[in-house]
């Protein structure tokens, strides 16, 4: 080797400046060959010797022995392997454009009891680190191999290795923000009571941004035990921290914050019973804004378009469990939401109402008749009440109220906040939809769809609800949606409303039962602006069917 290095040194400097090394130290065989290198000029001699040495070295290369002990290999697989077809589907989801259906695949794999394909573990572990919604699906699917692999990776190991009690304080006191957040998430799942304790210890030293982020981890496993700490955090100097705290306390049905708010609301809302005719809801607005209200997270300044006092009322109603009202007044949620009369400036109800169609396709001319249950009396601030109830229902996941509010909204939507702030355009709506038992939700949606089959473009509210119904759909709901869409797609002129339905196909494709795919192939107009969306819709459905079949 030193011969070679001598040669290389001379080559670097140039033969005009450095002498040609003698090259005699290598083994006898190569030395005799080297001695035969007799050529004109030192440059060619150098190159020939280098060629000889290099080839000699490479041709005779023997790898060095490995001294380090081998790491413990992975324990034997503890689950049957994923079928190769299923693994191919996974590859398509990870690499191609089928990524949105990955959740469905992971769910089906979990049901099959098989393990994740080892080949794609690196991508899946990366996803589990990056996306919290996928993490909870991927982690339970890790088999012996997956855990063995993750344990060796600096980032992945945080997914599986529990924190040692000794390391816990170290991480909390000196770790990075991310490490501390991870720690809190872990603890919250394992030993929820420890988190407020830990937070208390260093609370004064944390910057407001971190305090808010740490507090937010309490939302998992939230219980009455957290209340004392949260109650004290209501006095925090940061507005952001107070807002997170108030939201958490509002989600605790028996918290003092909820009780205080109930007490504030009680004099403002009442149900006036009448011997004859319908009961009436009476609403008065809060008179003044107090420091106590501010402490409980009620904001003083309203968003534009809403009066100050109505804004205070809305926020307070949003805190209190909606069952408070149905119990106090002994009325069902369905009845209560309909006691509130017209919430909008009168529209042409002829359009809004569900037109009736005869079997032969002709339209029956019936005028709109308000539901009997709906009060002809208009409740003052009724829209504020409905908006607040909706937020409260999403917060407290009340199924009965959720159903009543959804129906009321789809039938006769209210508008109290600008569309950016309104509850029904927020992500919170999916909580509301999720709160309704699936069968009831789908039964209602299906009958609505059947009634409005010919005029889906006028049923924007229905579409909004469908888009937030993010669970595998039943067959009758899916069929009803399809029938409506066929009619819509055949309409000659695209409008913004038909466009909305058309682009919703991408979302629908994730929830429509894939067994319907053969039916869904037919019924569309031959060539239209819909073709591209329908193609993609069917492609996803096909993919989902094949994907589920290979895991069956």
């Amino acid at each position, binding site marked *: 080797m030193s011969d070679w290095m001598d040669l290389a040194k001379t*080559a670097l400097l*140039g033969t005009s400046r450095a002498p040609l090394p003698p090259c005699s130290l290598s083994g006898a065989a190569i030395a005799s060959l080297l001695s035969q290198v007799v050529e004109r000029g030192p*440059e060619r001699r150098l190159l020939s010797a280098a060629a000889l040495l290099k080839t000699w070295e490479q041709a005779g290369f023997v790898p060095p022995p490995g001294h380090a002990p081998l790491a413990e*290999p992975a324990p034997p697989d503890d689950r049957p392997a994923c079928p190769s077809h299923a693994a191919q589907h996974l*590859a*398509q989801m990870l690499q191609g454009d089928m990524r949105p259906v990955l959740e469905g695949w992971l769910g089906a794999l979990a049901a099959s009891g098989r393990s994740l394909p080892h*080949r794609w573990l690196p991508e899946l572990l990366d996803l589990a680190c990056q996306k919290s919604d996928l993490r909870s699906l991927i982690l339970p699917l890790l088999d012996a*191999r997956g855990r063995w692999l993750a344990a060796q990776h600096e980032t992945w190991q945080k997914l599986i290795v529990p924190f040692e009690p000794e390391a816990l304080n170290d991480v909390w006191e000196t770790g990075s923000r991310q490490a501390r957040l991870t720690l809190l998430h872990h603890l919250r799942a394992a030993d929820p009571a420890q988190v407020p304790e830990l937070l208390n210890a260093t609370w004064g030293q944390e910057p407001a941004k971190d305090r808010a982020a740490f507090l937010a981890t309490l939302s998992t496993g939230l219980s009455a035990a957290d209340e004392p700490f949260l109650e004290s955090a209501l006095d925090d100097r940061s507005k952001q921290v107070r807002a997170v705290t108030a939201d958490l306390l509002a989600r605790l049905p028996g918290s003092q914050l909820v009780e205080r708010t109930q007490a504030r609301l009680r004099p403002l809302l009442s149900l006036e019973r009448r011997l004859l005719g319908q009961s009436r809801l009476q609403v008065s607005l809060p008179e003044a804004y107090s420091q106590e209200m501010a402490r409980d997270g009620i904001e003083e300044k309203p968003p534009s378009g809403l009066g100050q006092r109505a804004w205070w009322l809305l926020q307070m109603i949003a805190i209190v469990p909606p069952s408070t009202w149905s119990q106090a007044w002994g009325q069902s949620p369905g009845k209560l939401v309909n006691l509130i009369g017209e919430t909008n400036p009168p529209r042409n109800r002829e359009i809004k109402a569900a037109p009736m169609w005869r079997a032969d396709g002709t339209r029956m001319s019936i005028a709109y008749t308000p539901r009997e249950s709906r009060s002809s009396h208009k409740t003052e601030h009724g829209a504020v009440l409905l908006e607040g109830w909706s937020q409260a229902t999403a917060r407290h996941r009340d199924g009965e109220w959720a159903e009543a509010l959804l129906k009321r909204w789809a039938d006769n939507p209210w508008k109290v906040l600008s569309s950016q702030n309104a509850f029904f355009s927020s992500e919170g709506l999916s909580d509301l939809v999720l709160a309704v038992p699936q069968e009831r939700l789908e039964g209602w949606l299906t009958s609505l769809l059947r009634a409005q089959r010919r005029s889906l473009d006028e049923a924007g509210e229905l579409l909004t609800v469908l888009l937030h119904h993010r669970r595998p759909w039943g067959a009758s709901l899916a069929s009803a949606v399809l029938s409506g869409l066929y009619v819509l797609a055949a309409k000659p002129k695209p409008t913004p409303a038909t466009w909305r339905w058309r682009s919703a196909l991408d979302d629908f494709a994730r929830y429509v039962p894939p067994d319907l795919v053969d039916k869904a192939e037919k019924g569309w107009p031959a060539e239209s602006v819909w073709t591209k969306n329908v193609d993609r819709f069917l492609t996803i459905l096909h993919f989902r069917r094949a994907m589920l079949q290979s895991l069956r």
Partner: protein
Amino acid sequence: MTKVSQLLLSRMELRSEIGEVATVTHWSAEQIIALAPDGQVAKAARSLARPGKWQNLGCDEQVCWGEYQGSGKIPYRTAVILEGPTFKCSCPSRKRPCKHSVGFLLLLQAEPHVLQKADPPEWVRKWLTGRAAQASKKARKRTESVADPKAQARRAVRREKRVRQGVDVFASWLEDLLRRGLGSLQSEPSSFWETQAARLVDAQAPGLARRVLGMASIPASGDGWHERLLGRLARLHLLLEAFQRIDDLPLDLQEEVRIQIGWTQDQDALRQRHGERDHWLVLGRRATEEGRLRVQRTWLWGVERRQSALILDFAPPGQPLESGLIPGTDLDAELVFWPGSFPLRALVKTRHTTCPMETLPGYPDLVAALAAYGAALTRNPWLDRLVMPVENIVPIRQGDGWAVRDAQDHLLPLTVSSDEGWRLLALSGGHPVALVAEWDGETLAPLSLWVEGELVPIGGAQ
């Protein structure tokens, strides 16, 4: 009946009997997707692979066909000869295989029951007879086109002379480089190498030009660059020396030297030669950019011969590379090797049947594999790299990098990205597996891993 179509039909029967989902071809969806010339075609093909889009589907022993109803009035007609595969589609796309062809194969793979055995329709028969006619015409042309032998000889002498002059000039440039020392090269622009390479192209020695171009990046490659460069220059010098006294060399080495310098082989003539029939396993492939050309190396392994073969494909950037040889398949075929002192590069003369690979026979350990490389190097000192299938290999992490350890506890570092390193670890689980890698005398770059009866491509290999 070919093995593939037997397989196809038996699978179809299987499907109809027990209603089980089976593959129509032995290819996986991943392998079929890899046939697509680019990502766009792959994506489009996926969305075409639905039975509702196709009509008049059928197959016989040789060929499958179907009609795709696109946005136009007249459906596109797509047919595939599974052996090959060879595609035909009536669509106007310039990309081949087109999205319909790839989508059609994907459909057959996912839903084999859509195919009915039938007599090929007129248009398929026409295509098949057209192909046959073209093949015989080409063969005829080949035998007819014996050019004027005198003129050919004159041209050969003229080229010989030009190359000789070019080599002489280049040899003195090389000597001058060593006289001045390599130290000055770090400040040279890449045009320094490009100019020299262009001169060699003018002198009709493209093989030398390619080697010179390959050196341009070495001075900037970090520690030990001068040793790496000296190694390359020395081997180049050896080639010049060999060429200058070519008449003294054995015949096969003479041919090797001429190929290395850049004399091309007439592939049609090669095809006329006797082929070596074997079960050739497609071990892996890798595409790299060389100058303005994409080069794809596909490595085959002869089961009987225990010897590798290299299929090279070239394409300008953006153009699809030939992709008919699918890693993980076992090809009963005749290969013709380029002549030379260590025949390696080859072309497929005749394909008989294709089926999935069942085992990966390799060297028992790293020492045996490296010994085979050493033996090859003694026959062809200009060998760039060789494929090494090695059994009983454990991929391990070594510091920040990756390595493999064999049954004899020998250790060799791997050149592999971090992502692919973790994949090796995930697939092997710290247990011995069989690895296919390229060895260039310095580094070991994995191409694929054989694990649980499946060949998995690793890192950059398609």
